[in-house]
């Protein structure tokens, strides 16, 4: 059984995929106010993710949760680059770099650029 990673789209992220075929794949929650894209992760690859990040877990709906912020950000970056949801291999290639960034997350998570 595959697992999933949900990537939430705020306005800024939505702008980056607007007008691409990805728009049709958006899942709408909360009356359409919360948009997300769902990436399918084959089981052997989700195992690799769980092994890499000790807090990561699969929730009751089969979604991979409690992964580092850096991981989720990387998933979206690859989606935006490829204009496709078939990005999990690309993300896994970046694991060493993501792991480095994740190490700092107990101490520091960059705040978003809003006033």
């Amino acid at each position: 059984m595959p697992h999933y990673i949900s990537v939430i789209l705020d306005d800024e992220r939505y702008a980056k995929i607007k007008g691409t075929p990805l728009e049709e794949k958006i899942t709408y929650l909360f009356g359409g106010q919360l948009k997300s894209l769902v990436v399918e992760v084959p089981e052997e690859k989700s195992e690799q993710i769980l092994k890499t990040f000790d807090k990561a877990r699969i929730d009751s709906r089969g979604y991979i949760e409690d992964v580092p912020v850096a991981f989720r950000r990387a998933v979206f970056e690859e989606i935006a680059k490829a204009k496709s949801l078939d990005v999990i291999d690309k993300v896994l290639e970046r694991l060493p770099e993501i792991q480095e960034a994740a190490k700092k997350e107990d101490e520091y998570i960059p705040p978003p650029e809003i006033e």
Partner: protein
Amino acid sequence: MPLIKTPPPHGGKLVDRVVKKREIAEKMIAGCPTFELKPTTLPDGTPIRHVYREIMSICYGFFSPVEGSMVQNELERVLNERRLLSEWIFPYPILFDVSEEDYKALDVKEGDRLLLMLKGQPFATIDIEEIYRIDPTDVATRTFGTPEKNPEVVREPFNEKHPGYMIYKMHNPVIIAGKYTIVNEPKFKEPFDRFWFPPAKCREVIKNEKKWRTVIAHQTRNVPHVGHEMLMKAAAFTGDIEPCHGILVNAIIGAKRRGDYPDEAILEGHEAVNKYGYIKPERHMVTFTLWDMRYGNPIESLLHGVIRQNMGCTHHMFGRDHAAVGEYYDMYATQILWGEGIPSFGFEAPPNEVDYGLKIMPQNMAEFWYCPICQEIAYSESCGHTDAKQKFSGSFLRGMVAEGVFPPRVVMRPEVYKAIVKWWKVYNYPFVNRKYLDMKNKELEIDLPAMEVPKA
């Protein structure tokens, strides 16, 4: 049904043990032996409690009628029956604990007055009535209960993963019992200062400024999402001939778990709810109590009842998993206590139906979710589209926040989110981490004016 009025303080009278006149305070402390207050820490040094918060909550009347650190008979009575020696119900052991080494160095005895120093300044006194020893692990276990002794609601034995259990387990073994008196009134820092409404002041504001006859309390240790906001709004429809006039948010401020939101963001997040009109300020007010949360679900709910009755509330809303962490208690333990009582904890009936009990009335609430079929935020006991529910999940929201994604306003109000980001920029982190705990432990929420200790 007669109109509901503000209940009396628990125990009949608000405790006020704060000496405001400098000359009197100086006379009280002249020549006293001194002791600098220390935090309670985990074996790795993580601060999990600071007794100064208990001293503040006692002396300003939040915990009325408790006046100090409990004598041994009172500790036993609280653990066995959740009652003080004066018969009034009270949930938790309140203890001033010191290590054997500190006790030896202190060289004090019953009848002495000990001056407690904080941040290097005189803070409070304790008039020693009794000195005795405890087995902290035993106190910790009996405080929260066990599956064997409290089968109604305890599901798993408490262990070192439970923050409240660890607070008691890490207590020092020597207990100095006696009444506290604050002799040097602390000044709250921003933003705490504008949310500080000790019970006497809070009652005055409710009566004279807000002019609320009925007030429902909302417990929080969280930045509010819209699910919390709906809980507050809907629970407030209880009352008597009309919905409650006021909603009093009372945040618990103190040592927290890693991953919780910083205290400043919690207070300003709730404030944003009224400041930006989601519940207008005429009906909503934000306050706090100093207390290192014990996460004791039904036991904690009793303390919440005590505090908010003392603050002048007529009602208290209780959700499921109230003040809970993990799966130690039944998720409905608090609602069971307030709905029918928990005999093994000393309650054959709900806490507001026993002698010397509370007068505040419970409003047990279920859950809110977004229903795409009703197209509204629905109450779980009304909406029949359970399969379609979209839940307000705290962990899902925290994931969103950590990622720096602006949450949609149907999930979290933008002004509330901005309060999180404001403090995120200050602490370089959106949640409580070790650095924040250490900083908080050093800085505390207050500063103390300089004060000399006169010689005897």
